């Protein structure tokens, strides 16, 4: 690729900005490290690194109640950690937030197969609408659309980010 083409991370960041996201709570997966590095230095939003993903759901809920539009960036193992917070805070109080989830154990991955198998059934059980973009360009347009859907539905919406969306390039 030529150097003036946007990278996958730049496309996803553009989607986050276009969606009007004001706060991102994050916990890293190795495939999210470049994106998290960009968020930490992004003066258009507040970046809150957390140590357990349930915190992120709480911080996101507070950010929405205070007039912001939040996202939580995590791996799908972390998504499983958030199930109680999603149920008894985000769903029970009807609070919008965008869940940006790296989809470990999906096509192209070499580990976490059990995690990959349960991820979509768990999201279905929670009643969370879930989208899987085919590449970063699709993710760029999907992020603002899913954010609006979340706000209108008053509940979380998830985007699962596969290895095809977050190809890692040398910095």
């Amino acid at each position, binding site marked *: 690729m030529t150097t003036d083409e946007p990278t996958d991370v730049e496309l996803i960041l553009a989607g986050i900005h*276009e*969606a*009007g996201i*004001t*706060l991102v709570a994050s916990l890293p997966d190795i495939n999210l490290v470049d994106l998290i590095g960009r968020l930490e230095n992004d003066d258009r939003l*507040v970046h*809150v*690194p*957390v*140590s*357990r993903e*349930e*915190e*992120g*759901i*709480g*911080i*996101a*809920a*507070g*950010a*929405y*109640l*205070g*007039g*912001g*539009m*939040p996202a939580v960036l995590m791996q799908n193992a972390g998504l499983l950690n958030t199930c*109680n*917070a999603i149920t*008894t*805070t985000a769903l*029970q*109080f*009807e*609070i919008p937030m965008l869940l940006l989830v790296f989809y470990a154990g999906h096509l192209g991955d070499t580990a976490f197969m059990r995690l990959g198998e349960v991820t979509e059934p768990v999201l279905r059980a929670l009643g969370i609408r879930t989208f899987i973009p085919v590449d970063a360009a699709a993710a760029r347009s999907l992020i*603002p*659309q899913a*954010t*609006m859907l979340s*706000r209108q539905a008053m509940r979380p919406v998830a985007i699962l980010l596969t290895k095809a969306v977050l190809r890692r390039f040398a910095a």
Partner: protein
Amino acid sequence: MRRFDCLRDVAPLLADEIVVTNNGGASTEWAAVGRPDSHLQVKTLGLCSSIGLGLALALPHRTVIVLDGDGSLLMNLSTLPTIARQRPSNLVHVVFDNGVYEASGGTATQTARDGAAAGVDLGAMARAAGIAAVHAVDELADFTARFAASLRGGGPTFIHARVEASRERVPPVAVDEVENKYRLVRFIERTEGIAILTRPEPASQAHRS
């Protein structure tokens, strides 16, 4: 020192501060003494300090008070370094430590200082996590003074209040979670002069007719 006495004594000090309570005794007791429209009654054990942090970051000019408990904080200890890293000067985190899971039958938590529990000091944990303003109080007058001082900023403040295990008989709360959300959001909209529920979508997402 009783938690209800602490809450009753500081309620008259508040104006338009936001109050976030854990799902324990502080929730119904604050509902009995505090103003209802600025009160969020969290239902996820441990999450009240995270929700309070999100509010404090979204509204940096507005004081946010979290009324937490020992069992609740122990479930979400990673909230302490997260708060320390963000350094919200407008966040006041009060932990009423009675050494038991009071709302679920009175079993000892790991802060209990007798029996087999660990006897952990939550104030020391907050200090170790990097929170600068940590105050341990076990007298009512001291609690009220520390609470009043924390309303003037300089946070994040962590007030570790050791209280006896006692729950005041208060009326049941008559709102569900969704009504609680709308009540708080409309309070914030009104007092901040902002639109939250009717916030416009980004222009790129507006339907073109």
